[in-house]
């Protein structure tokens, strides 16, 4: 781990320990020093692993060719459904492809799907939520009704319609998943903004004639980052999971370098005879989602403005 991340996690742990000591629910009669020591070490460890995992996945996504022992396109007809062994570390699938190499190449597809979908959903959804919550009145009503209409159409329907109209491909799946997730970001953003608008410091800023844009940028947006970040981290997860569900229904992207969700979906009916085929893609998804979420939590602790103001 590089020095900068080390400092980062130390700072985060410091902030957290202050937070616990200052405002937590934990009984106050505990020896403060012991807690501080443990907490200073603990988060660093719990951060190290997820960051390593994410770094590894990003490396896979960036240069799969350097890391994969096989080309995942290669199908070895004499080595189908082989259990993990010295040659194929994670076994082979039903077409004789190396599962390990498939996972390495799949990282790119999955990261693309998760990242881009969150970007679409988060940015568009966040903007809508902010506008609705801050402007209030008729803007709020109109935007929220539109979102309601949007959300009342089940996700899968929108995805299927898009697949039907555009044809199944990675960009189209990303667009579908991204569009589907817009309302959830918008709703959370709006709820936060409304809650913040009623807070004293915002009302004070308003009363003193601060420009609305400045209020939004300086006083509201920073405070909404925390739930939005949590949403976004989980969003990467849910984008990959929605992609997997599309594969399950048979609307996945059938690429010769499939994403993890597609692999898991393919492997599911082989669980009884070749557990490795489905289990490793499943574990890869879990590892990514868990790591991203833990990282998101750490980020949240770092950027949460109240942690600073409280001190």
């Amino acid at each position: 781990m590089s020095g900068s991340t080390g400092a980062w996690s130390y700072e985060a742990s410091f902030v957290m320990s202050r937070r616990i000591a200052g405002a937590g629910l934990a009984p106050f009669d505990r020896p403060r020093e012991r807690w501080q020591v443990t907490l200073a070490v603990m988060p660093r460890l719990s951060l190290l692993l997820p960051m390593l995992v994410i770094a590894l996945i990003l490396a896979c996504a960036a240069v799969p060719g350097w890391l994969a022992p096989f080309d995942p396109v290669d199908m070895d007809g004499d080595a189908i459904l082989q259990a993990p062994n010295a040659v194929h570390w994670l076994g082979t699938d039903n077409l004789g492809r190396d599962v390990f190499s498939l996972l390495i190449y799949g990282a790119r597809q999955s990261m693309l799907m998760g990242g881009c979908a969150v970007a679409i959903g988060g940015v568009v959804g966040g903007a809508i939520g902010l506008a609705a919550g801050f402007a209030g009145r008729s803007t709020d009503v109109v935007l929220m009704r539109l979102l309601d209409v949007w959300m009342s159409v089940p996700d899968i329907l929108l995805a299927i319609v898009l697949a039907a109209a555009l044809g199944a491909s990675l960009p189209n799946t990303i667009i579908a998943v991204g569009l589907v997730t817009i309302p959830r970001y918008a709703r959370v953003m709006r709820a936060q903004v409304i809650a913040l608008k009623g807070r004293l410091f915002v009302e004070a800023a308003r009363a003193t004639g601060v420009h609305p844009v400045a209020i939004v940028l300086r006083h509201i947006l920073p405070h909404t980052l925390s739930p939005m970040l949590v949403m976004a981290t989980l969003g990467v997860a849910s984008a990959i999971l929605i992609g997997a569900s599309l594969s399950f229904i048979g609307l996945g992207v059938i690429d010769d370098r499939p994403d993890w969700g597609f692999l898991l979906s393919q492997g599911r009916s082989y669980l009884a005879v070749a557990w490795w085929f489905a289990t490793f893609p499943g574990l890869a998804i879990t590892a990514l989602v868990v790591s991203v979420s833990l990282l998101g939590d750490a980020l949240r602790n770092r950027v949460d403005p109240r942690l600073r103001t409280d001190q």
Partner: protein
Amino acid sequence: MPIFETNVATRRQFAGLLLAGAGLGALPAPGRAAPASRHGGELQFALDGAAVVKFVLDPHNSGFAPHNRVFRSIFDSLVVLLPDQSVGPWLARSWEINPEQTSYTFKLRTDVVFHDGTRFDAAAVKANLDRIKNPMNALVALPDIGPYAGADVLADDTVRITLSEPFAPLLRNLSKTTLGIVSPTALARYGDTVGQNPVGTGPFRFVSLAQGTEIRLAKNPDYQWAPPTASHAGPAYLDGIVFKNVPEESTRVAALQSRQVHAADSIPPQNVTAIKADPGLRLLQKELLNNNYTLYPNAAKAPWDDEEIRLAFRLSLDVDAIVRIIYLGTLPRAWAPLSPSMFGSGDRQLAGSWKPDYKRAAEILERKGWIAGNGGVREKDGKRLSVSFIDTQGNREKRLDVIQLVRRQLARSGFELTIDSQPAGTYVQKLSRNEFDLSGASQFAPDPDVLRRLHAPEGRDKSSVSKVADPEISQWLKDGTREGEAERRTELYAKVQRKLVEKSYAIPIYVLLYNIATTDAVSGINIDTHGFPHFHGAWLST
């Protein structure tokens, strides 16, 4: 012309013949002396209904195999297909065909009653056929009756079917589930919704339908008209059958393994070995009579209209390897379009008729100006040698796995295959508009005339998967429908199949063996000559 009488036809012991096509699997021995425990019980059957919720229990209006697997228990047919691919009597005791082969006169059984109490008679037959013929009804079974011109009720038990021209497939088609006889009373009463209120003469009557999940049937206690292929006369042993639609294959296997159901069909290859090895489970399997799953390069679209490009395409495929890898040795490779047991199949003649030849494929492509370009994909005049495969059914029978292997094998020769998986609506539209390079499909059928419906441009649907328009093939296929003599007919279809394969119009892939796995409590399920299950002789031991 042959005349069948009920008493002439032997009640065949079906067990030995069941395995004729496959030589695989263990089969409980049905048809022995009936133990006392043979009666009663309700069979729970997990059916692979695909992802389809809509169960249309109208035999005339579904070409979907899972529906037809249910039809056989509710509906009987005029004739039955015997294991030797000839036709035997069933609801019709006998028939006569005039020398011009345009008029079929059927003598009907007089003791048959529909589940709703309506008597089965000549008028009932006429009502069914007239319904199918009416183009306004737009029924799937319409092509099965071909040039049907009308039916005359000569007596209560005699009906004459008139054709506008000879139609040799008629008798075999009449044995199909799609020409099962529906109660005319029900037809009149339910109209378009007869598919939710099926009334036939079969060994089981319809009780209820929970759309998407369950079809309940109960024993027809009056049943006395089992076909000669049945294990016994008289009513079915079971009190009832519950067909549970379980589209997800791993769940279907799990439901059987957990004993929530007594039987499950379409067991995927990867589970077949485990089920065979399990002493508490049995596996039945039998070839489905069908036009095998076949790949069709789009002969009406460049560059596939060039016979040599199609040949290069075919020579790049190692079908043996595909079938071995995907189906794990559970299914045979197909050599001819028609499945091996079907009357007129060219499987034996065409076996070993070609081998993959990558060198020759490369030679052809080079000569035609397709030169290896970026990423190994061949190009000509800036156009990539890409193949858009169109599909709608998802990975049913592992067909998309087949295509993934095909894609890999083609890449070696410089083809670039993309998979265009579409909902049914888009799929049909793209087929009609000729917006694809490669298609693949299978059609269940007892008669080689299925080839005409695919490969003869006249009378073929616009959305046909095959775009073959070869005058010679069309002529042979046309002659085939008019030829009454079996041997000459076989010859015609042999020529058709040879040319389809040689000209690479059709690349047959695998022969489907329909299978059913059961617990050891189940005995006597038969898979008939068509490859559909019969539950008339099934029973549960306690």
